[in-house]
């Protein structure tokens, strides 16, 4: 006890006195319970004589319980129904249906995200191919692969711009004879002029210029410069139309295909000019 206790006149002293009385009564009660428990144990043991193993439950009770468990197990294995609360069953079934709906929704979300992930990876890899191209053949190969493998367009042509004569001329054709194609003026009043008039790469939402035999005219543009035009002419047998993802690929082809074509054109003509400090510094100042 603390020496600061002032006896039972102050609150702390009164509290301690109450606690001492409370625990004293609790201890006495606990002792009574233990004594009664011991008396009952002894009484049961005396009734069972030498067979007693100290267990409070008589052997017959245990045997009855084991027999009952065995009986229930037999009932269950024989297809017997346990008596259950119908309300609980309804709640469990409702919960199961909710979880099933949630799982289906999550599955659809995962599928959509994986589709978007694949689409973005497609765009990334194609752009990477265009920018890694070192020669005209590399760019033409990538354009061909994009049309065939990624868009499912089996018939297409690539026209390149001849800026001096203001025409586009056919360079490659897939899925139909090349000889059928002719040069076409850039500034006529047809679809070539329409895509040239955009003055920028084609984007999703822009009009889709077309005419008989051509599903779409797609300009290949670097900044504002029309470098070429791809005409989409027919789908592969397994393809029936263009999706939103396909239009995103076409927009990418319009811009990065144009940049890649201009880049290899410039590179081919700049190869004779060595890199020099003076030339590079003047470029920086320009």
């Amino acid at each position, binding site marked *: 006890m603390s020496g600061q206790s002032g006896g039972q006149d102050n609150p702390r002293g009164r509290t301690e006195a109450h606690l001492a009385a409370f625990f004293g009564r609790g201890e006495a009660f606990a002792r009574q319970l233990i004594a009664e428990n011991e008396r009952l144990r002894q009484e049961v043991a005396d009734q069972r004589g030498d067979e007693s193993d100290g267990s409070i439950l008589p052997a017959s009770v245990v045997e009855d319980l084991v027999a009952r468990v065995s009986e229930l197990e037999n009932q269950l294995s024989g297809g017997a129904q346990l008596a259950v609360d119908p309300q609980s069953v309804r709640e469990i079934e409702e919960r199961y249906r909710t979880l099933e709906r949630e799982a289906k929704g999550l599955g659809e979300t995962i*599928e959509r995200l*994986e*589709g978007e992930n*694949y689409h973005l*990876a*497609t765009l990334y*890899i*194609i752009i990477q*191919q265009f920018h890694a191209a070192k020669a005209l053949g590399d760019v033409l190969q*990538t354009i061909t*692969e*994009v049309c*065939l*493998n*990624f*868009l*499912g367009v*089996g018939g297409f042509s690539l026209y390149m711009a001849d800026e001096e004569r203001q025409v586009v001329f056919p360079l490659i054709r897939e899925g139909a004879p090349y000889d059928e194609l002719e040069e076409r003026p850039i500034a006529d009043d047809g679809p070539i002029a329409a895509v040239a008039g955009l003055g920028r790469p084609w984007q999703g939402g822009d009009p889709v210029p077309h005419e008989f035999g051509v599903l779409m005219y797609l300009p290949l543009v670097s900044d504002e410069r029309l470098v070429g035009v791809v005409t989409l002419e027919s789908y*592969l*047998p*397994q*393809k029936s139309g263009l999706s939103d993802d396909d239009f995103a690929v076409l927009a990418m082809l319009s811009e990065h295909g144009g940049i890649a074509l201009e880049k290899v054109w410039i590179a081919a003509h700049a190869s004779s000019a060595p890199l020099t400090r003076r030339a590079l510094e003047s470029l920086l100042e320009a």
Partner: protein
Amino acid sequence: MSVDRDSVRQATALVVDDSPPMRKMIVFALSRIPGLALVEADDGVDALRKLAGATFDLIITDINMPILDGLKLVKRLRADERYQDVPIIIITTEGAAEDRQRALALGANAYITKPIRAGEVIALVRGILSGEERGA
């Protein structure tokens, strides 16, 4: 062995396509399958070279390739007892029914046309490697 429910046993697949972006996209899609290692080959000849140096559990090949095309590759592999049981999936732009029938008659297990849907290819590869699907 991974405990992921979507994983396959440790397996290696050979992806044969002369188109680098297409090859990359197939590898990208299949790299989502835990436990599956992927090796790339540029064409049929490159595929044979890589098959000679390692063991593969699955071969995925294009048809139209220079030097040795996909159908000739399938024919060569099925004639070689070492590769008679290795599953082969064709991924091609050739969508005509007769092309499909010809490839399957030569011994291909499955035939998918481009443009591919990643989910379709992943499901097919998982099915084949888990032994649940033998293709068509």
